[in-house]
């Protein structure tokens, strides 16, 4: 018996290690209500401990590498490579001025929208607070498109928080450790986000395919979907706020599994392959943030004179409209309003009946033929 173990020692060790791993895998896989198998999103405590150890071992060197890289970039961009900075600064100042004007113009619309949403009891979530974080590492596997942030639960991060850049959405926080967090990218095969096509208003589910490309699945074939159409978050997945840019339609292909459906290949708005700094949405509120309110106040102050002039013009036009004769008779029911009478395509309008007829009154002038229409017609307007 001893010779058996000695002789097949290598093979026994191999089988034992494989067996342990297979049993460990079986523990981590569960069956969904639809009968499909999937990984349990909540790691067992032992598995989480292994992940914690692995991340604790890899994160410090990654942090060091990333820090060195960012320092080098900062030195280069801040002190060495300063060509065209003055021109860029002037261009940016012009852009800021233009955006302030646009913002002020849109302010009233936004407030009206908020009032309407309040009336409809519709809670639309706006981005309230974000936390800037740096990407320090990845899983290293193209079958697992995750990356790690240099912020964790100590900084207030929690699972299922949305991760974005200024260009568009990137992913969501999947797992959180004390000083790091794992982000599941939107182009992973297990990822999913509710999206809507901007023009056609078609909704679908955004996920990743084997090659890491974004695709919207579960859409019935529709000829209206064209390349270049913007794709936005739909806001129904409780992760991404509504209206964030996702990308644009690159092409439309047939779903290989279902004939009536199509897959919409999406070019991501964010540069998800090369991320350095991202924003984690840590809180959403149905109102403007203090920073946004400050921006709006600034825009209002800048736009004060122009806004006052526009307001004066509007007031003058309203006064003028009140003085001019109206086309709506307040004494008539709605169905008898002259504007609604479509029986005569060219209706004849008559002057109102005189309160005190004199020789200039139509029909009373000598030598004229009485106009039956003028005499029998009811006054269609009241004198103003």
């Amino acid at each position, binding site marked *: 018996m001893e010779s058996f173990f000695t002789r097949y020692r290598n093979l026994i*060790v191999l089988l034992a290690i494989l067996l342990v791993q297979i049993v460990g895998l079986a523990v981590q896989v569960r069956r969904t209500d639809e009968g499909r198998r999937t990984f349990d999103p909540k790691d067992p405590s032992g598995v989480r401990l292994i992940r914690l150890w692995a991340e604790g071992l890899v994160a410090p060197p990654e942090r060091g590498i990333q820090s060195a890289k960012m320092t080098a970039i900062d030195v280069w961009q801040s002190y060495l490579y300063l060509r065209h900075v003055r021109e860029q600064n002037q261009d940016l100042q012009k852009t800021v001025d233009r955006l302030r004007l646009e913002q002020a113009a849109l302010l009233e619309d936004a407030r009206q929208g908020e009032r309407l949403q309040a009336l409809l009891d519709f809670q639309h979530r706006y981005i309230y607070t974000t936390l800037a974080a740096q990407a320090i590492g990845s899983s290293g596997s193209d079958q697992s498109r995750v990356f790690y942030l240099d912020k964790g639960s100590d900084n207030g991060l929690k699972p299922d928080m949305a991760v974005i850049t200024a260009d568009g959405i990137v992913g969501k926080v*999947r797992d959180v450790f004390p000083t790091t967090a794992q982000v599941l990218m939107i182009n992973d095969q297990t990822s999913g986000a509710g999206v809507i096509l901007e023009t056609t208003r078609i909704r679908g589910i955004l996920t990743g395919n084997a090659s890491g490309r974004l695709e919207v699945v579960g859409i019935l074939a529709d000829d209206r979907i064209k390349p270049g159409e913007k794709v936005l978050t739909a806001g129904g997945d409780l992760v991404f706020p509504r209206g964030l840019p996702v990308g644009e339609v690159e092409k439309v292909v047939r779903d290989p599994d279902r004939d009536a459906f199509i897959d919409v290949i999406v070019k991501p708005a964010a540069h998800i392959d090369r991320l350095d700094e991202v924003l984690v949405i840590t809180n959403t509120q149905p109102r403007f943030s203090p920073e946004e309110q400050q921006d709006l106040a600034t825009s209002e102050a800048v736009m004060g004179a122009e806004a006052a002039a526009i307001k004066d013009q509007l007031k003058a036009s309203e006064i003028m409209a009140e003085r001019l004769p109206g086309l709506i008779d307040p004494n008539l029911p709605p169905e008898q309003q002259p504007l609604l009478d479509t029986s005569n395509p060219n209706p004849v309008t008559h002057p109102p009946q005189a309160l005190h007829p004199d020789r200039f009154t139509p029909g009373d002038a000598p030598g004229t033929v009485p106009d039956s229409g003028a005499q029998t017609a009811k006054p269609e307007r009241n004198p103003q």
Partner: protein
Amino acid sequence: MSVLGANFRRDMEIRRYPLLVYVMVPLAALVLQAWLPRVVGPYDYFDLPLVVTVYFALGRRNPIQGTLMGAGMGLFEDALSQHAIGVNGIAKTVVGFIAASVGVRIDVENHTIRLILNFLLSLLSSAIFVFTFRVLLGLDLEWQWFTELFRAIGNSLIAMVLFPLLDRLQIRE
């Protein structure tokens, strides 16, 4: 004398390294594997932990050590992903065992043989990974054969550069 027994050749040609190399090289491979894909973008056709596993398994010529090293590296990679822990572990466990077993029987000093072995073992690792995912666990996984082929080629190219460098670190008596 022309036909040497396997055990004799193993004893003669077994490679030894300083302890620091056993610790730092695998750790560096894991860190770089986690960091480099962010630099090279979508062209991450390499698997440094696999290359290092193959190198040490071929050099040490001990199937148990190769198995343990493969298991450790694979489990570590799994821990950094969102997948279940063990998928990469199984693949690299088998690769480590086979590499060490082959190392006992053939001349692994030849660079061409090492490259070919690296290429074949990379493909084997990918095949076991997909098998475990789709057949053993019954999970959905899309994969592309040419990606795995590119990865095997990438691993061979890296091995072509890395193996001679690591050879310099071995203890020579």
